[in-house]
């Protein structure tokens, strides 16, 4: 049986106290599912933390969407058992209909009701829940958050793909959900529209503290949004846990190994953010668009952009240097390369080196050395 996952911003090493807390606060979504169709079988028994963003990641056809639809109640699989925290959504003899489950769903393609304009679409769910529930999200707040004001009187047909998904997201939020289900919300969009809507999803994830399940087959989206990850393959969950740890899975090495570091804000000097990871300083160009803020930042670092040296490097253009420890050395996708698993203050970091370099430096697990980080992407 799997363990509960650490809370959002805790590194694995210091997560223990926060873990017990988060379990009480948010609860878990328990899914026991067996779907058997021709040529397809989905079987899992999982407890998904109802906190932060959990990505259901895997190739097309691995069962991600089937799982999401079962959780929503859109498909009725008689043997499924689904509990949302204390609420039974599906048991041996009960099945809560979709409209009674408090979920917000964003579908893959545009799902705006074509006979209603943007404002009417936004309020469709809100009006049906506002009388019965204590409203937490007001239309004005959501319209503000997602910058929907200029679109309100337009018909769905007049909107671009990215705008439609933004409205669909706002509509889902206004139905006052306890759980947000996103079924490949970016898959039908071109690159530009994706960039247009990703920041809004990040905003929602960060500011609204609403548990989200994100179905995706794009590692890029998952890395930007998810806190936890469930890796599906051929109808089974092959691995689950906090994102940073999951990125070490060999399945990800093939699509470009990377790491996610959580860094703490210390200040900003000369347009450079001063961040620390376990007390070690990292400097990153401050984002131009958004003002800097206290708290945590998520740094994405490609394994390709990490170099290793036995001694601290002086006289180099690379400013960011961290003392790290080698955990393991693995084969990489290319036969001439190896993937070095490192640890910095309890957080995993990966470096992609040539086999030759690894041999020249005589790298062994347990060895302490220095990692130079050439490029960092900030979320």
């Amino acid at each position: 049986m799997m363990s509960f996952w650490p809370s959002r911003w805790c590194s694995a090493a210091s997560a223990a106290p926060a873990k017990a807390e988060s379990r009480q606060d948010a609860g878990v979504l328990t899914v026991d599912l067996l779907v058997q169709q021709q040529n397809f079988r989905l079987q899992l028994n999982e407890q998904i933390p109802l906190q932060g963003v959990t990505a259901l990641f895997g190739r097309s056809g691995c069962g991600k969407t089937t799982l999401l639809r079962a959780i929503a109640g859109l498909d009725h699989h008689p043997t499924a058992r689904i509990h949302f925290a204390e609420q039974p959504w599906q048991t041996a003899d009960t099945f809560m209909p979709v409209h009674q489950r408090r979920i917000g769903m964003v579908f893959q393609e545009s799902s705006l009701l074509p006979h209603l304009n943007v404002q009417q679409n936004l309020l469709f769910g809100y009006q049906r829940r506002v009388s019965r529930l204590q409203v937490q999200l007001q239309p004005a707040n959501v319209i503000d958050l997602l910058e929907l004001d200029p679109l309100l009187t337009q018909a769905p047909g007049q909107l671009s793909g990215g705008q439609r998904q933004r409205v669909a997201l706002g509509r889902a939020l206004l139905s006052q959900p306890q759980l947000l289900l996103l079924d490949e919300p970016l898959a039908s969009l071109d690159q530009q529209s994706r960039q247009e809507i990703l920041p809004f999803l990040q905003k929602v994830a960060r500011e609204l503290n609403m548990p989200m399940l994100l179905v995706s087959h794009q590692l890029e989206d998952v890395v930007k949004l998810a806190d936890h990850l469930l890796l599906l393959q051929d109808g089974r969950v092959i691995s689950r846990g906090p994102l940073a740890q999951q990125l070490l899975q060999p399945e990800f090495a093939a699509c470009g190994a990377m790491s996610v570091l959580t860094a703490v804000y210390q200040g900003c000097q000369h347009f450079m953010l001063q961040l620390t990871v376990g007390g070690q300083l990292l400097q990153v160009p401050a984002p131009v668009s958004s003002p800097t803020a206290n708290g945590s930042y998520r740094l994405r670092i490609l394994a390709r952009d990490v170099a290793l040296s036995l001694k601290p490097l002086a006289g180099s253009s690379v400013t960011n240097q961290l003392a790290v420890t080698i955990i393991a050395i693995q084969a990489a996708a290319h036969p001439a390369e190896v993937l070095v698993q490192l640890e910095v203050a309890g957080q995993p970091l990966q470096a992609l080196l040539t086999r030759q370099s690894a041999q020249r430096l005589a790298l062994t697990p347990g060895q302490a050395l220095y990692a130079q980080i050439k490029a960092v992407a900030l979320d």
Partner: protein
Amino acid sequence: MLNLAPEDWLAIQVTLKLCFYTTLILLLIGTPLAFWLAQAQSRWRTAIQALVALPLVLPPTVLGFYLLLLLGPHGAIGSTLEALGLRHLAFSFSGILIGSVIYSLPFTVQPLLEAFRRMGQRPLEVAATLGANQWDQFFNVVLPLCRGGFVVAATLTFAHTLGEFGVILMLGGSIPGETQVLSVLIYDHTEAMNYSQAHQLSLGLLVTAFVVLFIVYGLNRRLEREVSL
């Protein structure tokens, strides 16, 4: 120009009444039936669909014949009614109404089925996740999105009932004020060599049918353009 006898007016009255009730009843029955056909995975689906389409290919006389047997004084339904102290349904307005409902069923179900299929499941799933129950979904999603389908279904049903002949003649005969509809009266006029009367009514029906269909298809095209925008 119009020179209609009282019996002609009576037939027009019976015809309109029959068309109106048939359309009303068929919309009530046909909507859930078409909805079920649009999404059912059941193995009964094909059988039901074939049954619904049967009046399209069957000679009206066959339908009328079996209904006459069933609803008449010796049929299962007719004799039950008699036993309950009611009248059997052959040669009555209620009888031809039942016949019309069965006969025009495909003309209600087909356009609705097509409209529901074109709409797909997604709008209903969306509405459900937003807290709308089945009735809510029907009135606020299905009805507005399938408006065109409902208009076409209602009109085709009305127009098709207007032109019904064989079933009514078999089942209802030609009782003025009860079962004598326009098509049957035209037949009677023709039999009696009363050509000018037959001509008036026939031309009237022809023009009415054309105008009704013309208006409906025009309306439907406009509705579709609105929704697809």
